[in-house]
């Protein structure tokens, strides 16, 4: 028997209310109920980072968050953050530096990288690697991904001059 819980969250800026099975994690809710398939499910136990979302402005594992835990909170996904233009610098740099092959890890990588862009002005290559260490890329594209984040950081510096 499914236990349904009425849940209201702000999803990419819009208020959404649904009756949600208690056991459903946030990514399944987004993918199956809301049609937002940008957050991916790789391992589904917190290791791979492909499901990275933003909850109340902080990056989280979508697969380790129950959708009902988002009640009263703000959820931002790759779709919302792409549409708003917030990720444009990083997306351009990923494109330029060939920082994706199959693209499965890319939404999570972008959210984790953007979190670093927010929290640090001039992170070193080592700090970039550490911040992205919770996001796995099975195409082994790490060098290019770190290059892209560095490119975005340089572009941001140029833009703020």
């Amino acid at each position, binding site marked *: *028997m*499914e*236990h349904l*819980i009425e849940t209201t969250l702000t999803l990419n800026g819009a208020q959404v209310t649904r009756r949600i*099975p*208690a*056991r459903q*994690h946030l990514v*399944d809710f987004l993918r199956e109920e809301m049609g937002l398939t940008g957050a991916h499910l790789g391992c*589904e*136990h*917190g290791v791979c*980072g492909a499901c*990275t979302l933003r*909850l109340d402005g*902080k*990056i*989280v*594992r979508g*697969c*380790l*968050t*129950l959708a*009902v*835990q988002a*009640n009263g909170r703000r959820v931002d996904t790759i779709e919302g953050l792409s549409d708003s233009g917030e990720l444009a610098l990083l997306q351009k740099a990923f494109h330029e530096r060939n920082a994706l092959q199959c693209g499965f890890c890319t939404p999570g990588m972008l959210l*984790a990288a953007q*979190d670093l862009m927010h929290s640090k002005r001039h992170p070193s290559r080592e700090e970039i*690697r*550490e*911040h992205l*260490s*919770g*996001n796995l890329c099975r195409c082994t594209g790490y060098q290019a991904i770190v290059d892209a984040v560095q490119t975005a950081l340089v572009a941001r510096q140029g833009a703020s001059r």
Partner: protein
Amino acid sequence: MKAPSFAYTKPQSLPEVFDLLERHGAGARVLAGGQSLLASLNLRLSAPEILIDIAGLPGMSGLRVEGPLLRIGALATHREIEQSPDVARHLPLLAQAVPHIAHVAIRNVGTFGGSVALADPAAEHPACALALGANFVIAGRRGERRVAAGDFFRGLYQTALEPGELLVAGEFPVLSPGYRSAFAELARRQGDYAIVGLAAHGRVDGGRYGDVRLAFLGAGDRPLLARKAMAALEGKPFGSASIESAQAALGDDLDPPADLTTSREAKLHLARVLTGRALRALAA
């Protein structure tokens, strides 16, 4: 995989939590940040009837200095601890240890209390609490009690928490003058569970080791104090001879279980390597 079906409730007060724990007994699991619990549910390693979500309960969040103690609420996240100026100043051991816990996205959600109550033997907070002589504040229907970290961890995922009780905070003595801390950990990748780790704390004034506490993680069924090695260091001058005597004594302190990738002997060797690094860091 997908988690099995369970019910979910979000009580607003501690008495409500106690009612729920009483009513559901072993069928209930407390949900704090959920960074271990939800993974184990997705893997179907656990099948509770009901999750009791304690997020937002009053009196259990944040960190504050209370006289000679720093109180860390059970619901304080790893990230809050990592970024707290009070922790950096008063509990440098925790400030060094927390970046080893998983990754930012998990540290944003995972809680101090969740880590302590789960009592994974490879976790960082339990070993730090043991090294620093922290107490845990436990609430139950009949009020609060305090249990020293040394008495709290009873075995693999076993703690002094009784049915119906909830961990509400940790109380850490703030850093005393002349004392220093060092944390060292080896893992296969950044953020993985430790193969072995060491939380070290002690008096280092006058060029000698005193009152040193060495708490190992990943070296047994619970965080362990290396008492023989600690005794070997008492009053000894900084330098290789003192470090080597502590490293030798570790053979009597630790009997680490082999895991899939690391033998008992390799773990003991790595524990000695970490002991050298931590003792040199204390003396630096």
